[in-house]
């Protein structure tokens, strides 16, 4: 009789704990299966809520991939004074090349520029009529854009435009900056949307579990009267949230990959028209695990909040 108020022995408690977990694990899955219509509604909402941020993330990834090579195209054209001697042009080119953020400097003399222009412009005959070569010598500077970043680029351009002998600096990268800014904005937007949808998942699961708790109020009271611990009562609800999150993630991943499969063909033919071999990226194993992990965790969290708030309030009277 002395053991009356003690917790049971450790060994039997561990067995009971494991049995109870296994029971709650399957019981909660069975409950979803037994009430398919209500469960499917909840799971569909979760699936969409998880598919949206995953899809946006993929979109961002694909844009990044498609524009990856473009940074290397950034270059700065320096139009030199027309009467600068070849020697001075070379000296200036060498000096610029010494800067750490510059990878390569290409010198185009006025004559070369004219020849190239004649060849490409179709104004060959008209240009022949001119006495003078109207074109200035040009230095094309290839900066290490990725290594130095935007700030260093601005400093470089500012310095060059104040260098003697350089008439004009033309930077063909404003659009690149804009693209970068757009990408950054999009990335933030995706984060914000993902955050809001994560909250949605928590609320949807929390609400579903809350209703479930209310429907089973009598059962909870009876269970408490015959010696169920709060942990025991919580368990099936927590596993319920976990299952919702897990199955919702599965649906979300299927949705994203399905949408991708639909887009793959048209995107490839579009890329083909631009002479690109670009192919859409799907979710890799790592990212799929991420969606599963975060979906499951959010589902569990939602039920945890509902359970924490509502099960304590139910006491037998």
């Amino acid at each position: 009789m002395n053991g009356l108020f003690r917790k049971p022995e450790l060994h039997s408690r561990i067995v009971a704990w494991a049995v109870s977990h296994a029971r709650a694990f399957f019981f909660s899955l069975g409950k979803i299966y037994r009430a398919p219509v209500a469960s499917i509604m909840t799971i569909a909402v979760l699936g969409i809520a998880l598919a949206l941020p995953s899809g946006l993330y993929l979109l961002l990834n694909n844009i990044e991939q498609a524009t990856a090579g473009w940074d290397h195209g950034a270059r700065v054209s320096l139009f030199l004074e027309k009467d600068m001697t070849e020697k001075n042009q070379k000296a200036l080119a060498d000096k610029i090349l010494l800067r750490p953020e510059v990878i390569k400097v290409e010198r185009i003399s006025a004559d070369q520029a004219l020849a190239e222009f004649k060849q490409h412009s179709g104004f060959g005959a008209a240009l022949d009529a001119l006495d003078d070569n109207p074109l200035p010598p040009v230095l094309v500077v290839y900066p290490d854009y990725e290594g130095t970043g935007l700030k260093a680029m601005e400093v470089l351009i500012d310095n060059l435009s104040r260098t003697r002998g350089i008439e004009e600096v033309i930077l063909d990268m404003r659009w690149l900056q804009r693209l970068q800014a757009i990408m950054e904005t999009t990335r933030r937007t995706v984060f914000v949307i993902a955050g809001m949808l994560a909250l949605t998942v928590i609320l949807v699961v929390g609400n579903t579990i809350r209703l479930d708790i209310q429907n089973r109020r009598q059962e909870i009271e009876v269970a408490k009267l015959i010696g169920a611990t709060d942990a025991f009562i919580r368990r099936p609800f927590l596993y319920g949230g976990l299952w919702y999150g897990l199955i919702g993630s599965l649906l979300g991943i299927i949705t994203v990959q399905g949408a991708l499969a639909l887009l793959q063909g048209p995107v490839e033919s579009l890329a083909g028209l631009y002479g690109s071999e670009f192919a859409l990226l799907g979710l890799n194993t790592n990212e799929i695990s991420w969606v599963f992990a975060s979906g499951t965790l959010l589902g569990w969290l939602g039920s945890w909040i509902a359970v924490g708030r509502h099960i304590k309030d139910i006491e037998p009277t």
Partner: protein
Amino acid sequence: MILFQNVSKRYETGQEALSGINLKLEDGDMAFLTGHSGAGKSTLLKLTALIERPSRGQIVVNKKNLTNLGNRRIPYYRRNLGIIFQDHHLLYDRSVFDNVSLPLVIAGFRHQEIGKRVRAALDKVGLLHKEKAQPITLSTGEQQRVGIARAVVTKPPILLADEPTGNLDPGLSREIMDLFLEFNNVGVTIVVASHDIDLISTLGKRMIQLEGGRIVSSSGPDIQ
């Protein structure tokens, strides 16, 4: 052993449900609580099951002072009680077997053990053939017996019953009381709240009459 020492219970509404109760039940005792509704019978049982805490005084069950029992220990304490209600509190979404097995599931018994014990308990109350039935299909008397099977399936040393025959005709009431007598014969301490004086006065057990939250008469030894 169940011991009440100067126990009072005042609800938050201001109603004094019990005042200055002194009561002692030895192991293996069987006692009936009688009195009008509102006399404090249910409150006394609720205090014993720790559904309510006393406002004053001490309750000792099997040498343990319940005042010192923290809320987290209550579930483990209740596993030593079998509680039977007037409206039996069965769960209608599952079979008789699953209702009766619930205390064993909660206590973490293994599957095979659960089957054996549930059938033994159902056999005891004469409902072995109904294990697969849904509670809703049973008669009131049968439902009450399922409730009793659920209360005794863990073989608790103490049984508490609140108006267990309240909804039953005299014949069925007698059957239920005979079941309690059988459990008492094997050493279970039993407290039954009932106003069915005609029936219980024939059973030769201790009767404790409550009125306005006080014990007004008792056919057995009280500590005063």
